[in-house]
């Protein structure tokens, strides 16, 4: 996984601590797991099959 920006970020907690925090949030139903995919809106310039 490439993550250039985050590679430069200081490490704030160890993996075990991170997992513990995640587990706690998951248990409390407070883990925000929303996923958004972007549906591209179609511009009028793309709907003219006559021209393009």
């Amino acid at each position, binding site marked *: 996984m490439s993550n250039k920006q985050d590679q430069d970020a200081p490490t704030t907690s160890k993996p075990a601590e991170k*997992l513990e925090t995640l587990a706690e949030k998951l248990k409390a139903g407070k883990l*925000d797991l929303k996923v958004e995919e972007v549906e591209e809106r179609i511009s009028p310039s793309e709907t003219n099959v006559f021209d393009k």
Partner: protein
Amino acid sequence: MIQKSAAFPISLIFPPQGHFTQPYLALPCLKAWLEQHGFGDVALVDASIEAYDHFLSPDELSWAAERVAEKLPLDKFGESGELRFDELEGYRAAAESAVSASALIAGIDEAKRIVRGEDFYEPDAYLPAMRSIYHGLRLFSAAHFPSQLTPHNFTMRLANDRSEEVLAATLNEDENPFIRFFRERVLPGLIERKPRLVGLSVIYGSQLIPALTLGRMIKAALPDCHITAGGGFLAYIGKKLLAAPGVDACLDSLIFHEGEAPMLALANALQAGESLSTIGSLDWYDRSSGSAVRVENPQGHPIRLEDAPTPSFDGLPFEKYFSPEVVIPYDINRGCYYGECAFCTLPTVIGPGYRTRSAKKIVDHVMELSEKLGTRNVNFITDCMPPGMIADLPNELIERKANLRWWCDARVEPKAYTPEGARNLHAAGCRKLLFGFETATPRLLKLMKKGQSARATLDVARNCTDAGISVTFYAMVGFPSETREEARATLDFIRSNSDVVREVSLQTFHIDEVAQTYKDAEAFGIEILDDEHADLQLYHDYVSESGMTQTEAAEMFEEMMAAFREQLPLFSGDNIYYFMNKSHYFLHLARDVSPDEFVELCRRRTERRSTEQAVERGLAPATDLGLTTLPFRYTDVVRALAHPLARAVRPDFLTGRYVEDLIPRAGAEIGSIRPAESALAYSANGAEYTELSIDGKQVLDALSEVGSLDLLLDSLAGADERGRADLNRFAARLERAGVLSRTH
């Protein structure tokens, strides 16, 4: 054939940007005509497909990614604490490049391979590949920010209805990607070939800046070469263009309307060293006095279409078009036999008169081309097929066992498209017809002078559908005086007949100078707004006495498209790429997949992507995953940029919606984006921009650390069933988006 001196090489060039799925027809017609009349050395160059193919290569995308990182550093946005409207496009480009450049560079060759090969016919391969191609163009465009090259358009920040700005664009290498492309990829071949005459085909507004850019560069490199241009778009604005100061540095002459006769006369005159003053339909610069003096010749006569030879596609790079099979364009007639529609501008583009070829000649030509090019797919180019031909052409195709598959535009002719007539068309290989429906409102149809009713259109469409022919409707929103309610009635009409109408080509109405709506504006209850600074103006803003404003029509366009995406399977989710890419849907029909079967294919894909899948427990982050934290939410930015006002700030010859100095107004109405941290993910396999919360990113990080989903679930001691279910759902969605993939 009379063989003239071989020492008169001619190059016919199709400048960027045209669609990348199939070749265009005009230049092959001209090549064949010139060859028939003795010019044996005529080369075709499709600089548009060459540019797309070159730009969408690993080397060019790597170059673009480096340039974007320098030009649009992500951390420079939002320094005021909020992301201003005028920063949105740059921020979006920077965010996308940061997260997707690596995957796009690695995956672009595979995406092109898929759309050019047998995998094209597999939706789960084709659709991500098409998304990669679109995203690759966004990355390449970002390197020339704010210019945008898409599969459908090319726009720059410079207004393309002002000659001063158009000419400035031809010299702006920072933002005009074609300067470097022409210098490195087109000019060397021309310098070696030394053509005496170059013809540039400018069909679309999106080609204007690239064509003038190329013309300028050829003139500088080959001062003795005559450079002419012609094509549909120049038929609109050509006179204005030649009158603009500075254009003589890019062109020597301009051909209006049909090119065969003027081009041949021009070649003959140049070869003989004669004056150009007798060539019909040619405007040119007389440089004999030392300066360029514009001369307008009288209009010439069009050719007898029946005399035109089979178009010659020799020399075009068929392997480079983004389609698995060639679709041959072929014109069965020129002009429109009806010619009354109030919004139509085609008579101006095509020139006077209506001419057709005989069915026998058409079939002679397309059978010859089919054999030569190794394809049975044909796109008949016609503004509307005349009623007689609707019977003659299929009969000839059937009688001669042509075994072709074809599609074309058509006018509603109830007496021709009877159930029997439609069955005959299908038997002759017709697989898709596109009808000008426009609106369901009788009052507007009358005002448009369409000469048809919505009911008759539907009857014709039903006959074609029943015969197995796919039907597309052209529809229009925002015709002068149309109300929101009337637009919604059109929407309801189409929605309630979605078993008959497979696709809708919806356009916002715009006024250009050659239509009746412009010439007789009062009759349509509108006041035309002129822009005195726009010396190349074609489209005009207007104020309507009643009905929707232009902005309201643009909003209604969004509402209608959203409804079509809900209702029409071909428009749902990413299936819409089939519609947007010219012959791509047709190519399935050409393999005798029925429209119903294709609709089912689209439905199944939409369902697969919207229902919860069983989670593969060995899931882990995709090996090529790009993941970047963002200070402003990507989806907020994309939604803001989809606002009609945000679209109108960009000069766009295709839609006519460009409002100068709109940025402050759009900024005030759309507002700024507040900071909210998120993470953006992208992988080559999914080819989707997927936004997660910071929590979601931490889960992804944890998944990377422990190795797979089942190991993560094991590690999350104490997670109850609900928590596990939440995590499974999250993983399923990410798998669908390609963010997670199976580890074995």
